[in-house]
């Protein structure tokens, strides 16, 4: 493959190893939560027992929005965002744009959460950041997504941290590519019974080679999302718009045209939604109304990509007449390569461009990247152990985080399932996660042998995986007949996946236990 001079290879190995060891465990946390977040929508439906399958935009909602507009103070009726919440219900945010003292662009207004019948179930007032927190019925999926996106560190630091993790993954992928001389020759070579360094090296390089293109892809797109709002927008706004982020947003994402503030009622939103569904083969995932109640009102509907494509679709309608205007590129007013590249960043990162099939593939790739990260750190440690420089504390940390983190995520799911019916899931979901983290850390400190610690955590993972469907049913979640009758197959699929995952983990541990007992007996016999 790529042949570097010896000194440069040594340098690359050092860069690869140290970047992996210093940032690998945080990167692992970002990737494993991202892997789960690929199925955030399905996990949300499964955990909260959501059985509705029809989009809120496929049901009449025009009347509800008009009634809400009538009760909303005029100062917040500049723009309206509409999106789905809970069990395919509607969330409506009437708002105006403001510039915070920090120069950041924010939205302030009234956020209505509607129920199945279109009645107001909850009303919140404040900035977007204040009103869009997790709700009782989506606390688990919100927790997963928030952990992946910003590791629960406040903005902008959390986004910057995960962006740096993305860059670290890029550095590791590139340096790994450069140090591995026989990338494709070794692609099938796994010497499991070789010495620990060789075995770990093979595990790491085989998984790394197979997942290499996607490591680049996911790291790049992840960094793009982290740095876009935190660094990209302020820099471009400063360079080209004198620091005016509103002007930047209007130019890049807004609707060009002459302002016309003449009052005019908004056209029929149900007609717009029906037309958009007809044009894109799918309900909108988001709808926004600019200049609500004015003659120049524009309604924009956002859609997932059409079958066979990965670029999401955006349609624009004349708000006053509810007539179709045009298909809009994600950036600017005319189609461009940059606009297309920016538009495909999200589907490439989330893997949601071909439904459950692409999500399952992206989940598998996330698992492979987690495996590469952990085996890489283990290889680094094994090499030092070979040179009599044992780092027992770091080995334990790798075990505690490597197995403790998935255990804590499962505990968060169990905590959510038990407390959601009581209305306290927003508190107990992260609390369960932290409690399980504390237990794993404590186990890491008190369990004398590394193998016992690893095995104990794996048993807990397997048992909790297998128990989750039972906990869900015991806490009042819908049974399989009800989910089949409603056509909501995600609940059954997640049940089967957790049961199968738990059974496989426990079976594997049991097989390893039997193998070890057989080895111990074989070693004992000659002694006797």
């Amino acid at each position: 493959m790529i042949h570097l001079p010896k000194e440069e290879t040594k340098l690359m190995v050092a860069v690869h190893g140290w970047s992996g060891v210093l940032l690998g465990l945080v990167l692992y946390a970002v990737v494993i939560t991202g892997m789960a977040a690929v199925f955030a929508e399905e996990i949300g439906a499964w955990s909260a027992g959501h059985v509705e399958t029809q989009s809120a935009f496929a049901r009449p909602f025009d009347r509800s929005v008009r009634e809400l507009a009538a009760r909303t103070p005029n100062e917040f009726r500049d723009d309206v965002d509409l999106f789905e919440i809970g069990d395919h219900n509607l969330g409506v945010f009437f708002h105006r744009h403001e510039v915070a003292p920090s120069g950041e662009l924010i939205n302030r207004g009234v956020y209505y959460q509607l129920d199945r019948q279109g009645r107001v179930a909850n009303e919140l007032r404040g900035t977007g950041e204040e009103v869009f927190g997790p709700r009782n019925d989506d606390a688990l999926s919100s927790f997963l997504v928030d952990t992946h996106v910003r590791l629960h560190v406040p903005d902008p630091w959390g986004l910057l941290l995960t962006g740096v993790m993305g860059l670290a993954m890029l550095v590791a992928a590139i340096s790994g590519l450069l140090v591995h001389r026989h990338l494709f020759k070794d692609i099938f070579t796994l010497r499991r019974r070789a010495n620990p360094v060789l075995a770990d090296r093979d595990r790491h390089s085989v998984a790394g080679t197979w997942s290499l293109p996607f490591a680049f892809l996911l790291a790049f797109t992840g960094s793009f999302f982290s740095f876009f709002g935190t660094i990209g927008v302020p820099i471009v706004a400063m360079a080209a718009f004198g620091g005016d982020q509103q002007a930047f947003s209007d130019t890049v994402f807004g609707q060009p045209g002459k302002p016309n503030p003449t009052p005019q009622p908004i056209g029929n939103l149900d007609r717009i939604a029906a037309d958009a569904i007809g044009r894109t083969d799918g309900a909108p995932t988001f709808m926004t109304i600019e200049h609500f109640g004015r003659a120049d009102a524009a309604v924009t509907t956002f859609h997932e990509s059409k079958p066979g494509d990965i670029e999401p679709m955006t349609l624009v309608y004349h708000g006053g007449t509810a007539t179709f205007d045009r298909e809009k590129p994600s950036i600017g007013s005319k189609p461009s390569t940059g606009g297309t590249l920016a538009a495909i960043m999200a589907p490439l990162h989330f893997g949601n461009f071909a439904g459950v099939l692409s999500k399952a593939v992206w989940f598998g790739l996330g698992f492979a990247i987690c495996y590469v990260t952990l085996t890489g750190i283990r290889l680094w440690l094994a090499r030092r152990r070979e040179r009599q420089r044992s780092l027992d504390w770091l080995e334990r940390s790798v075990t505690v985080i490597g197995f403790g983190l998935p255990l804590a995520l499962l505990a968060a799911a169990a905590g959510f399932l038990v407390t959601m019916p009581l209305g306290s899931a927003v508190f107990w979901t992260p609390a369960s996660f932290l409690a399980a983290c504390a237990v794993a850390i404590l186990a890491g400190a008190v369990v004398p042998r590394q193998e016992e610690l690893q095995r104990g955590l794996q048993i807990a993972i397997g048992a909790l995986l297998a128990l989750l469907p039972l906990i869900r049913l015991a806490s009042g979640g819908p049974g399989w007949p009800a989910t089949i009758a409603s056509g909501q197959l995600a609940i059954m699929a997640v049940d089967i996946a957790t049961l199968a995952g738990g059974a496989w983990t426990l079976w594997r541990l049991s097989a390893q236990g039997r193998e070890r007992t057989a080895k111990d007996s074989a070693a004992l016999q000659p002694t006797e």
Partner: protein
Amino acid sequence: MMNSFLFAAIAISLALIVWLWHGDPKRRRSSGLPQVGNSAGKRRYLAFAVALPGIMLAAIGDSAAVLVWLGSCSIGGWLVTQLRNGGDKA
């Protein structure tokens, strides 16, 4: 219909990956298996054949299918290497 093409493309590529894995000389040597692996030329043809279904999907213009095919081959190839190695000789 498109899904049928996609599944067929994945199945063909994975079958060829298994063939490549089976005849991989380095893997056979390190596992202590008889040296009857594929020659370098044959491996090159097989590698091209693995990529062919993806090239065809790209030619049709189905970018979503190309990505799903590539991801499936990546995971499938890794799993083939992981799972089947247990049956080899030490």
